């Protein structure tokens, strides 16, 4: 195999794409292993002696641990609830014909477009009146506005791909619609359900605006706490970057698992 100049250019181009995609992530991770002195060096250092001090600091900080715990509770609960409510709806949209189906479908999808600030204002006022500000509940509920549509969309698509013959056989055996859903569609649709669950976890985990507005002290999520380090005279850069790494790492791994479906998840399947 001979190396042509076209091939070299292609390889260099691809290498540039990889560098472009990974650089900010790399820079954050590298910074999380630097001492404060190294972080403030000008010009910035590319080679340095790594330290684990920043990680020791954040894992000893009950605020960070608590925030990661809150993020985990909120993202997991909203995901479970979204699957519990969304999978049956997806089954109905995939299998039944009824009036207003198209409108209902579009209503689910259009929730993706709504700006969080539009909902954050009234939800804040309502939560204030109902005294549920700063609880896991209010975040879990408001996150359903984007997790539920994503579960409904991906699962509808998945359920449609299950051959209807299976259902007919079960129906001849006298199975109810609920049994058909539980015994045929849930197991066969499991891959789609898993993908949609991963997406709703990623989106909930990454959310900042609602969490910023609807929480105070007790249920601050990880992005809120990471952001709160950004005040004061001398910023603890190492701690900030270590917290950032701890936040980003789990969702990056999840995203790599569903990387083939990434575009579908972000566009609600507008492009195949």
């Amino acid at each position, binding site marked *: 195999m001979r190396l042509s100049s076209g091939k070299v250019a*292609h390889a260099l181009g691809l290498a540039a794409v990889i560098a472009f*995609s990974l650089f900010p992530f790399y820079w*954050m991770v590298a910074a999380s292993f630097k001492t404060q002195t190294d972080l403030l060096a000008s010009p910035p250092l590319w080679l340095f002696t790594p330290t684990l001090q920043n990680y020791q600091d954040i894992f000893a900080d009950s605020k960070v641990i608590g925030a990661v715990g809150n993020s985990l509770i909120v993202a997991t609960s909203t995901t479970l609830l979204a699957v519990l*409510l969304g999978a*049956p709806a997806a089954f109905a949209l995939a299998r039944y014909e009824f009036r207003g189906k198209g409108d209902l479908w579009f209503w689910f*999808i259009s929730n993706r477009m709504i700006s969080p*600030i539009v909902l954050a204002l009234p939800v804040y006022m309502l939560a204030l009146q109902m005294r549920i500000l700063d609880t896991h509940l209010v975040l879990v509920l408001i996150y359903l506005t984007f997790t539920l549509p994503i579960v409904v969309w991906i699962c509808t698509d998945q359920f449609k791909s299950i051959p209807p013959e299976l259902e007919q056989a079960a129906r001849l055996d006298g199975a109810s619609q609920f049994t058909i859903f539980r015994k045929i569609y849930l197991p066969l649709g499991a891959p789609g359900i898993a993908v949609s669950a991963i997406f709703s976890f990623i989106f909930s985990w990454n959310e900042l*605006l609602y969490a910023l507005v609807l929480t105070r002290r007790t249920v601050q999520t990880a992005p809120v706490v990471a952001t709160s380090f950004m005040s004061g005279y001398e910023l603890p850069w190492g701690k900030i970057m270590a917290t950032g790494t701890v936040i980003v790492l789990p969702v990056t791994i999840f995203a790599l698992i569903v990387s083939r479906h990434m575009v579908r998840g972000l566009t609600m399947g507008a*492009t195949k």
Partner: protein
Amino acid sequence: MPQTTATPNRGYGRWTPFWFLAPSVAMLFLIGIYPLLFALVTSFRRYNLTRPREGFPFVGFDNYAAVLTDSTFWSSLLLTAKFYVTVLPIQIVLGMGIALLLHKPGLGLLKSLARVTLVVPLATTYAVVGLIGRLVFNRDFGVANQALDLLGIGAFDWLGSPAGAFAAIVILDVWQWTPFCALIFLAGLSMVPGEIEEAARLETSSKLALLRYVQLPYLMPGLTAVMILRSADVLKLFDMVFVMTRGGPGSATDLVSIYIQRVGFRIFDLGTASAQAILLLILTIVISRLYIRVLYREVN
């Protein structure tokens, strides 16, 4: 096991779809529609949390009149539009370039690696992107100025100057969302039937002609999707900008979401903020109708 009273031709009762849909529809109504109605009502009230003694009287269209004559609101919308027309062409061109690199035959392993790494920017927590930006664009020890220094350009006060702060949020948005465009375009390119592309490659050596006459028709749906989805996303954009610049310096990065958030949660003028939110909602509804019209036509 209880049996549904099934009509013989369909195999399910008339109300069966209803039972499967009811929980999620009820929930989405509770969290997605009821608050919007509440915001609509609030937008007709004077509702300032810092002055609770005055109560929350109805004031008709006063809030809307105030918003529509508020030059800051208009300039934040204008800035959002400016941001959109700045980032979109860059993302489309870069995204197209990356998609073509990934579509080109050969170098399978490197291509798969590049394709997978594209997911990393998309998954990175938006707020953390803002934190990274604060470090990268720092005037004294930021790596952005180090790069400028290598190019022989002097240090630049990125986050301290209006032009620099706007450039910084543009760069980070381009970093985060170019992969999105690239992956959509790549999906479009792979829709081109293999034999047609082969034949065209034999016919012409011009890459541009290949792109224009063979590949572009397959890229159009993706291009439309990118244009519409990015417009909705730019109207939503908050986290990264809030963390990095809080809308400053001055009003250099005061996008519409940032401005409404400030009116609502810093000034606590929730009546005015609700009116702003309702106007933003109307804009969003127009965009999403457009999106559904153009892209889901075949579904219905």
